């Protein structure tokens, strides 16, 4: 390094730990609250150390749900969130990779217009077209269905552009070679291109899974049945009731359960996550 560090590096360590504390404290508190007695929390006398209700609260949250209302158990919500996130991530990746393949490896009329039609959707996030989209999904009888939850979010110009960019870097010789081997467009895609795209697909999957899991506005609009709620929607409904009736340990356990899968993905697949994030956003 440029100069001797010493005291400066202690300051750096200190600032980083303060940063980590700021980032982690709300989550720590949520976990602590989920292990404590509701009465203590409601009185504002919550301890800052874990309480003894861990198993009880999590059992109730996952299998029973809040006792005050007729809401579904959070287990169902976790399942819904998982299905939705998987459908969005896998759906986006599969429809994007084949359309990118067509655009890069074929020459056909309207190729560029089609590309631009897909590209422009970058500028139309679901928030700016919610009610018309809702009406279409209702007309198609897709309310309260997994298809309705995921289909409108599946089109992704980002993924198409990413695969297109990657395909452009694949050497032409590979295509020539597999042609000489007698491979057609299907074999070339399946045997050559797909294996080469594995890392890109995985990185994209990590990002898309998190985005899918965390969807809020769209599921809020199109799910009316309690058993189709995702966990991120369910948690909001739990604190709808007046303060006194809110079962905070269950709410906080739900928050912890809602964070767990995406956070796990980020921590365990950190390299892919960082790569996916930088590539999709740049």
């Amino acid at each position, binding site marked *: 390094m440029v100069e001797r560090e010493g005291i400066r590096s202690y300051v750096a360590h200190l600032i980083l730990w303060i940063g980590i504390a700021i980032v982690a404290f709300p989550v720590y508190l949520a976990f602590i609250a989920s292990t404590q007695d509701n009465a203590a929390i409601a009185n504002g006398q919550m301890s800052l150390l874990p309480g003894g209700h861990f198993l009880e609260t999590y059992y109730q949250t996952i299998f029973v749900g809040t006792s005050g209302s007729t809401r579904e158990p959070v287990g169902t919500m976790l399942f819904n969130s998982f299905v939705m996130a998987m459908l969005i991530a896998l759906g986006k990746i599969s429809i994007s990779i084949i359309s990118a393949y067509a655009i890069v490896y074929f020459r056909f009329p309207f190729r560029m217009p089609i590309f631009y039609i897909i590209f422009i959707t970058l500028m139309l996030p679901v*928030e700016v*077209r919610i009610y018309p989209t809702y009406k279409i999904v209702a007309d198609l009888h897709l309310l309260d269905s997994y298809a309705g939850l995921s289909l409108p979010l599946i089109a992704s110009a980002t993924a198409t552009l990413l695969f297109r960019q990657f395909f452009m870097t694949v050497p032409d010789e590979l295509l020539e070679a597999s042609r000489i081997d007698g491979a057609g467009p299907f074999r070339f895609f399946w045997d050559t291109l797909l294996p080469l795209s594995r890392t890109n697909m995985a990185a994209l999957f990590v990002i898309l899974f998190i985005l899918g899991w965390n969807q*809020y506005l769209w599921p809020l609009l199109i799910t009316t049945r309690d058993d189709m709620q995702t966990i991120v929607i369910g948690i*909001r409904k739990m604190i709808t009731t007046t303060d006194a009736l809110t079962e905070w340990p269950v709410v906080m356990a739900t928050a912890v359960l*809602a964070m767990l899968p995406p956070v796990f993905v980020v921590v365990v697949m950190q390299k892919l996550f960082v790569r996916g994030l930088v590539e999709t956003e740049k």
Partner: protein
Amino acid sequence: MAGRERRPADFADNMQKQSVFQSRLLPYALVAPQLAVVLIFFYWPAGQALLQSFLLQDAFGLSTSFVWFENYRDLLSQPDYFAAILRTFVFSLAIAVSSLSLALLLAVMADKPLRGAALYRTLLIWPYAVAPPVAGVLWVFMLNPSLGILAHGLRAMGVDWNPLLDGDQAAMLIVLAAAWKQISYNFLFFLAGLQGIPKSVMEAAAIDGARPMRRFWTVTFPLLSPTIFFLLVVNIVYAFFDTFGIIDTMTRGGPAKATETLVYKVYVDGLLGGNLGGSAAQSVILMIIVIGLTAIQFRFVERKVNY
């Protein structure tokens, strides 16, 4: 999902492979699924919104007439709407500035050759995965006037903390939760930006006698400006759209609309039903804002590619 949809950098090349497959129908079959989704769920609703914004229905929904820009004129003459625009921009700036400055400080620290640097990085990036509404719930719990731990602290310090009644405090609540959630994203990009600055440049500045603080402002900060600008745009888009979940779990736009942003207003006005044309006009104005922000971002990316 809004705003996160961005494109990779080398968009400019419209080239294609030298050698391609020949097939009359196959390419159309391959683009068909994506094209179908895009046409049904993007263009059709966007077109509907555009069309409806020029239409006016009578009170019973019996007849509809084409009224050109009347819906827009109506909308823009409402002081309410202007207040929401202004509020949205204030929120965006507050969220972007607070989150960016804290993230930059942390990234500069984490960029030093410290022991445990990889661990610090892991411990700082995971909140990216927390859903905005969940972030809202976490902060509401800490700052709930009757049972929140931080609320007790604030009261002990003599602050009259009641975001349920005080609009400014409710706004602070939203900004806090939204900025907290965005720290890890900004941190990650700042760290990548810092690691892209050649060490030789820093050493040259050090040899010239520049102290670390001065080195930061005269060397690091200017070299980081493309990253800062990129993040500023991303954060504004984030504050526009992703705060919806935070607002909905924390304040529902209240008290007295003090936290109602443009996106939240579209949602609330649409939910109340009634004015279809006005709500469509709101959507179209939002679309124009998104297109503007995206265009700014594109110009920036273009420059960076040439750089």
